[in-house]
């Protein structure tokens, strides 16, 4: 046979053609699987301890009632029906829904506006502004509430003085009607930077040549933003709506702190989490509080998932 080296033709590789389900895991795969389990076990243990167990315990406790006389006894869904019939609780739920319904779109719009500016480079000193906008993320919510409390203080706050100077006398940022709008402003202050950075990173990952193609097609800038960039960062926006919704529904710290600057507006059922806190901790009604927390969790999940679907569908209709 001539010793000629054949040009490497397509190599035929034989593989055992066992159907996936019936394939027995080799010793190698099993050993590998054990190692993988070992890596995730530490997290799973603590996770179960800290999250799963308390959750289970809360659900369990919510089915019981403790009375002064008679001790603890199984009460089934009594706690739940009490929660569901509580006007105060639902008032709180409506309130945070209104809060989130205004705060989230406004904040996302502002964040997207600046993220686009940074991505396109159409304003000067972009990196400096990005760094500044991110500062509130490093501020604990308690501290920002305290700071804003000072600024909005009805008697001494500079922003109040500002309104007086412009002609609105006896203006109170923290009055009953303006408390939610004020908290919306605070929340926008706290969260816009974070959302902006995420959107900015998403915008930057749009491939450059797609935009260049649009430029060669003489697409005006607004169309590039609205019809190309915006749809391409849809996953990021959806995720942000999701995360922000979960946060908004759990409004607690800002009203609690602002209450110290203007008494009387924030009741102890003002938001669902405040309600849970006062019920379970302040009043010591743990089981009722647990039931409330479970109901809130269900509402949060429902609304978050709904917000995912809603956003997804709306954006889909170009």
């Amino acid at each position, binding site marked *: 046979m001539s*010793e000629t*080296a054949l040009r490497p033709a397509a190599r035929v590789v034989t593989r055992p053609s066992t159907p996936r389900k019936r394939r027995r895991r080799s010793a190698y795969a099993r050993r590998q699987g054990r190692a993988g389990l070992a890596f995730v076990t530490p997290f799973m243990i603590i996770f179960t301890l800290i999250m799963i167990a308390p959750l289970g315990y809360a659900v369990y406790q919510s089915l019981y009632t403790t009375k002064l006389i008679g001790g603890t006894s199984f009460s089934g869904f009594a706690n739940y029906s009490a929660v569901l019939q509580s006007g105060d609780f639902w008032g709180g739920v409506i309130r945070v829904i209104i809060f989130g319904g205004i705060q989230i779109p406004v904040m996302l719009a502002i964040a997207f506006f600046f993220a686009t500016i940074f991505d396109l480079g159409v304003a000067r000193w972009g990196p400096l502004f990005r760094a500044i906008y991110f500062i509130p993320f490093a501020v604990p919510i308690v501290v920002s509430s305290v700071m804003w409390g000072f600024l909005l203080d009805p008697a001494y706050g500079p922003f109040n003085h500002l309104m007086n100077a412009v002609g609105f006398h006896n203006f109170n940022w923290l009055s009953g009607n303006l408390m939610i709008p004020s908290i919306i402003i605070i929340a926008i202050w706290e969260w816009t930077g974070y959302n902006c950075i995420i959107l900015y990173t998403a915008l930057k990952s749009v491939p450059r040549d797609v935009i260049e193609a649009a430029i060669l097609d003489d697409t005006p800038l607004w169309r590039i933003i609205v019809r190309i960039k915006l749809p391409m960062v849809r996953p990021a926006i959806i995720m942000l709506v999701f995360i922000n919704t979960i946060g908004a529904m759990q409004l607690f710290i800002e009203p609690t702190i602002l209450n110290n600057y203007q008494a009387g507006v924030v009741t102890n059922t003002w938001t669902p989490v405040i309600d849970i806190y006062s019920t379970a901790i302040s009043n010591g009604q743990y089981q009722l509080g647990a039931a409330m927390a479970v109901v809130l969790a269900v509402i949060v999940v429902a609304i978050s998932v709904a917000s995912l679907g809603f956003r997804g569908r709306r954006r889909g209709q170009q």
Partner: protein
Amino acid sequence: MSAISMEKLSKVYSSGVSALAGLDLEVRDGEFVVLVGPSGCGKTTTLRMVAGLESITSGTVRFGDLVVNDVSPRQRDVAMVFQNYALYPHLTVAENIGFALINKKVPKPDRERRVRSAAAALGLIDLLGRKPGQLSGGQRQRVAMGRAIVREPSVFLMDEPLSNLDAKLRVRMRSEVLRVHKAIGAATLYVTHDQVEAMTMGDRVAVLHDGELQQYATPRELYDRPANLFVAEFIGSPEMNLYEATVTDDELLLGSQRLSLGPARTLLAPYRGRTVIAGIRPEHLELVGGAGAGQAGMATLVADVRVVEELGDEAHVFFAIDATAAGASMLVAAAGDAEAGMLAGATHNGVAQINSRSAVRRGQQVTFRVDTGRMHFFDPDTSVAVPQMPG
């Protein structure tokens, strides 16, 4: 007046890197010009400067009589097919193709008609409702072309549009691209690193290297009369064989062997007594039998066979002679040249392309007839080709 003309076009990036150093090039109306060269040679930079996507450091670009240096890419009436196609992923094929027409405020019925005819020309009618994510590479490439042709531009630019396709598809798409070009008739500038694409598609081909133009001619010119060592090595597959040779009165000394020069004698008169770089294409070496079959008066080369690659009708014989190999050992691997993947341990310094009926084996000693009339010579210092006889 040419459709596109470039004068002393240069590009230096703000980081100091010089991508293009003074290019002079012109493309006639309806011509298909290929810019070819290895990565980093400046071909894509040139294309982007013509498009207006890259700023021009110095020099001018003209469309016809008009200097377009300061004209925005939006107004240049240029359509471009990108290497990665740059399709809008969230729009359907029809919307992708029609996108530019919406910008031009073309009324809906006209828009749909033009989109349909562009889609029909490229065999995309059945795919109009799909999104790019649901298409194969070849289909996406055609959508990218459709998007460009629907605009009926005066200048067509293509940035390596076929390099992301697999080899067989690439060969098929070559004729597709040319067919579309003929139908549109616009001047086209086509960038590739594949010299086979350049040779088979271009009306004229510009070879670039390190930001400088090496030669701008028809494919035949490039093949028959390469202007310098780089072009000689870059064009043609397998690569041209290059050796250091010494010139005597009427013979060429290649290692220990002498080749009678024949008509090439007069060409090399200035180099008598000196070294020159001699090149011979693999296809110009003819097998004339085993060792010792050399006949007096012919130009023959005796060589040791190291490796033989069978390709069916042809075979590539890798051999070694005792001459010194010359030329840049630049691997034109990017051209998909199979020989670039050399087998380890086979120390050869030449390739011959022969008819595979002649049974040649590794370890044999063979004799090749050399057609000295078709040899190429290059100055060893400047790498410029020694001028050949006309005709």
